[in-house]
């Protein structure tokens, strides 16, 4: 768990301009999806990026893979600054990153057979002969639990859980060091969710992978993460080990988020929800973006954006709050 940094993200900012009419009469607005995010992901760990809709977690994941070019900031992966890489360098670096998305069916090309889908990253990077690639697809299919006899079928013949297995096999084809999984189990049924999570845990142990795991589901993050980053309004508000963040949260938002998760059995009708809603990405409040919803907010919170620092100095947990618990 205490490996070296495989991935380090520094001051990542991503703004999306909102385009207007043909001649751009009128000023366009900007969606501030990510507003300065920094973190390190160590070799062999699973870092869960959690937060609610629109908090910027998916944008961070895509910027790390350079699917979006960051507006500013650096993304160091295996010692290379990804933001400086162009076509060939980027393609070479991407070989070491596997991607898994939320909707398994739409992320698989419906015209390709499963064998070709799984071997696609190998074909893209020109690894091996077509025969070797097919053999590799066999191997991966067996590892993720897809029957060899099904390899010549097409994605629509499979259930959601099986499609996600295929997507995992594809993500692992080029032997990546890092796998970015964006809500990989969110669209799956409960009994299938745990199957796929188990597969991810299994693959990580066997292949020494590192995961950047994006999820809105606290329970899923709790099950799979070594460390957790909680995002709110494009920023990380709390960062630390899974035990600390989920059992001793220091940021009021983390606390509210954890309290909102319904528990199995027993807390019927327990009222405790807060009445407010997440901010929009086009107009963020001044100071700490959480202050309009925060029960502890004071004058300072409306004026100054708190830095992500260690409360009290010594602890391993970082929080962006003027008045942490």
């Amino acid at each position, binding site marked *: 768990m205490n490996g070296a940094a495989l991935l380090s993200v520094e001051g990542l900012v991503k703004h999306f301009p909102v385009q*207007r*009419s043909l001649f751009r009469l*009128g*000023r*366009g607005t900007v969606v501030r999806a990510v507003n300065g995010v920094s973190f390190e992901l160590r070799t062999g760990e699973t870092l869960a990026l959690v937060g609610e809709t629109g908090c910027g977690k998916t944008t961070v994941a895509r910027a790390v893979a350079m699917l979006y070019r960051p507006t500013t900031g650096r993304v160091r992966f295996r010692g290379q600054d990804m933001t400086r890489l162009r076509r060939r360098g980027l393609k070479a670096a991407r070989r070491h990153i596997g991607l898994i998305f939320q909707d398994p069916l739409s992320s698989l090309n419906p015209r390709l057979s499963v064998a070709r889908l799984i071997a696609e990253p190998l074909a893209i990077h020109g690894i091996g002969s077509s025969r070797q690639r097919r053999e590799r697809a066999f191997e991966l299919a067996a590892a993720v639990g897809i029957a060899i006899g099904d390899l010549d079928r097409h994605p629509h013949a499979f259930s959601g859980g099986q499609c996600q297995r295929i997507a995992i096999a594809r993500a692992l084809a080029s032997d990546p060091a890092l796998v970015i999984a964006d809500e990989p189990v969110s669209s799956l049924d409960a009994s299938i969710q745990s199957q796929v999570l188990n597969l991810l845990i299994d693959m990580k142990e066997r292949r020494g992978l590192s995961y950047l795991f994006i999820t809105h589901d606290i329970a899923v993050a709790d099950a799979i993460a070594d460390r957790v980053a909680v995002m709110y309004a494009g920023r990380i508000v709390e960062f630390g080990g899974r035990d600390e963040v989920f059992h001793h949260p220091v940021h009021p938002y983390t606390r509210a988020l954890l309290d909102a998760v319904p528990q199995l059995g027993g807390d019927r009708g327990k009222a405790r929800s807060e009445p407010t809603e997440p901010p929009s990405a086009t107009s963020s409040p001044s100071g700490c973006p959480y202050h309009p919803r925060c029960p502890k907010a004071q004058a300072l919170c409306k004026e100054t954006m708190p830095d992500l620092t260690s409360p009290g100095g010594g602890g391993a947990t970082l929080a962006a709050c003027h008045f942490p618990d």
Partner: protein
Amino acid sequence: MTRFAVTRAIEGLIVLLVMSFVVYGLIGLMPGDPIDLMIASNPKLTSADAQRLRALYGLDRPILERYLNWLTAALQGDFGYSRAFARPVLELIGPRLVNTLVLMVASLTVALIVGLAAGLYAALHPRSLIDDLIGYLSFISISTPTFWLALLLMMLFSVVLGVLPASGMPVGADTGLGERLRHLILPVATLSLASAGGYTRYMRAAMIETLGQDFIRTARAKGASEMRVVLRHGLRNALIPVITVIALDFGALFSGALITETMFAYPGMGKAIYDAIMANDFNLALVTLLFATLTTLVGNFAADLGYAWLDPRISLAAGRAGT
């Protein structure tokens, strides 16, 4: 809403300006200028005369300079003289434009009423006998060429039955309204039948799509009657995509009008454009072609306004851009 309209109007003007330059340039690039035609028709003209005439008309100047001169005059309302008809262009075009607009508006109205009603009926009774019948009829309408339909209607109503005039709409203002209407029936029938089939298909598809939406289920869950579900919740949403298609179709309606006019010898813009280009009549051709552009732009503009009126998400999105 106002801001939205103003923005679109300014965009339209810019498009018109660009188009005027393109059209001017294209006509300028055509082989032979009016003086060449004069020489061809009058062998007594010497090349020295030609030089003088070119200087007189400014045809020896570079094209950009000529364009700017034309534009300056045009902005002051002077679109020049038609050489072929020896009258000011605007005076010549005025009544023809009215005729074309009458034809287009009447045809569009008829086509919309027929098409939307048939499409709506078909959508509410999918896979019924009448739906099938409407389907066949609309495909016939879509695949029949306008000129052929015109000939067919002429054959039937003018030649065989002899109840309607086939051509020769009088130009003068002194003609009675009844006589004008009689002359309009066949062209309008041709043009509207040609587009009604398309509208029917769009309307049917859009309505079926809309009726499958979640909010229709919500309306039913509220206990809304089928009538209320269709008219209050379905129709307005279904019209949104239909309006777009009609707007895109506006250009086709215009060119359809030109063909129909030619077939029925109807004195509209179609004939004017044809004559102007054949006679190499610079000023007339320019203005008629620009009117064609303008018609399409106005159609799109009207569609945008209709769109914004039907769909609150549109106008508000544009309104927010200004803040």
